[in-house]
């Protein structure tokens, strides 16, 4: 198999008229790539190994556990309401993702595919708000939630996060690339704007919508500052806030903290590996804010 791949590469090099890269240079590039990968992976490996250690071995400098303790993972669930944290994070992130995609795809359609007076002025206003640091609106939004009695509730976590100028901007850019003839033809056939949106534009914007959805989910699953100030009850905490309290109360139990961390990032790794085809393209289209 390796032979045929090498033959294929040789052939490709012949076609493009380039010298095949020398085996030593290929070897050194791989060596470098492997070294960087190991540096990237080392902290994760330490995290996983430590999560299986008994408490007595945490401060031992041998990275491998003397005896393996998978029951550390169960202990996390008995010491703190970890299942609640998990559930809350997934619930809040799912709702925010759904609402963000819903509201911003509608708005993006209005900006990208409809002509109306004032459109460009309002769009520029949206763009300008991308510059506003989140902390500027933090205090007013907090005060607003307290006034509306949404403080310390799922609503208070979900609703303020559900509107995104950035998502609107991104989906608008995406929708602008679709040929205009599509909706004009449908419009001549008497299709309403809603039908054009739902049956034509939205399905064709699938890749953009999926990218936005992944980033929205990921960002809100890991969201920290807003849940930190919005939630007081321990059963409403999301994972990042729960982790913070776990760490500050049970901080000496590094093995359990690491087990919790592993469980915290596991869904993200699964999400990433299963969707990276979309993600990489989406980021490269400029789909990411920072």
């Amino acid at each position: 198999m390796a032979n045929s791949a090498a033959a294929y590469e040789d052939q490709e090099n012949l076609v493009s008229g380039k010298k095949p890269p020398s085996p030593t240079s290929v070897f050194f590039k791989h060596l470098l790539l492997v070294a960087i990968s190991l540096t990237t992976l080392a902290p994760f490996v330490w995290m996983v190994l430590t999560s299986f250690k008994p408490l007595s071995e945490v401060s031992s400098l041998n990275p491998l556990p003397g005896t393996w303790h998978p029951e550390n993972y169960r202990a996390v669930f008995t010491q703190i309401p970890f299942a609640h944290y998990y559930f809350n994070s997934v619930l809040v992130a799912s709702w925010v993702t759904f609402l963000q995609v819903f509201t911003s795809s509608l708005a993006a359609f209005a900006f990208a595919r409809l002509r109306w007076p004032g459109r460009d002025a309002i769009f520029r206003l949206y763009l300008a708000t991308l510059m506003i640091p989140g902390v500027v609106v933090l205090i007013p939004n907090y005060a607003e939630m307290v006034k509306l009695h949404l403080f310390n509730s799922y609503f208070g976590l979900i609703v303020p996060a559900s509107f995104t100028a950035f998502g609107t901007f991104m989906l608008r850019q995406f929708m602008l690339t679709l040929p205009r003839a599509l909706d004009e033809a449908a419009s001549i056939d008497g299709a309403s704007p809603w039908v054009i949106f739902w049956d034509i534009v939205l399905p064709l914007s699938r890749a953009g919508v999926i990218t936005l959805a992944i980033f929205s989910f990921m960002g809100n699953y890991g969201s920290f500052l807003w849940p930190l100030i919005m939630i007081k009850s321990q059963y409403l905490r999301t994972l990042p806030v729960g982790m913070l309290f776990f760490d500050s109360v049970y901080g000496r139990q590094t093995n359990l903290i690491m087990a919790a961390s592993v469980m915290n990032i596991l869904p993200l790794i699964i999400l990433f590996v299963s969707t990276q085809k979309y993600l990489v393209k989406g980021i490269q289209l400029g789909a990411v804010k920072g």
Partner: protein
Amino acid sequence: MKSRRGDLLPALAFLAPNFLGFLVFTAGPLIYSLCVSFSDWNVAQPGVFHWVGFGNFLDLFKDANFHTYFVNTVYLMLGIPFSIFGSLMLAILLSQKLKGLVVYRTLFYLPSFTSGVALMILWKALFNPDFGPIDYVINSVNHFLHISGKAPTWLLSTHNLLGLDVEKVGFNAKELGLGARDALIIMGIWTGIGGNNMLLYLAALTNVPPDLYEAAELDGASKWDSFRHVTWPMIAPTTFFIVVMSVIGGFQAGFDQARVMTQGGPAGTTTTMSYYIYQKAFEEFQMGYASAVSWLLFLIIFVMTVINWRLGNREAD
């Protein structure tokens, strides 16, 4: 193209849900926050409310804490050039014709995708001077080479590579070394180097037309020449974008790290502007003062954005 006035009503309907959210959670709060920044509103003293004009802003210029926290914020941004340079190097490596590139790319991207509180707690343990593996490795190397130096205490240390003094803005040779801020920079580089910037560079590198390299090769250009005169100018817009976004992000950064890893310490050395806003608002309840700090931060970012935008436009001309 005919003007379609008939689009106005549907457009408003499509826009309404998002625009309503925009008014309630962005535009309204923005105005509210500006008003609050001119007041002495303090949640801990109900009933007391005065307009203080520019009082908060004047206090801010005299606030020695704010000066050092501003310097901390800028110091933490020293990692940006290294991070960007690293992303470019990784992208160049990944743009070679090699087997297994997707696997490498996935691994490099992993820290940035999983970044957040869990990884910060992990790094807190890694930097621990008693049982953390980083100091263990440093001590072993020192021992092996018969160096008597002590490993840095990282998150517990006010030391820094520029010798910044602790209580005030200035130089103090005693502070030279590696400390909490450097630890955060190292973590930041590890997290960000293989992230979005690398992917953006990767896309930019694949978009350089191959015939430009062929032409350079025919002219007898070395690898370095063709990087310097072909690659670098061709990816300049990407570099520009990445630098702008990193600087804007850098000014707003530091809250999560400070809250999770250091509580802003030791001696306030990892307190950044955003963490100071949090402390003022949600620990000391001085909403007026905190709002003033956040508007100053906004102003800094606004000025940076305008300057960058001007520079970018000039380059495009």
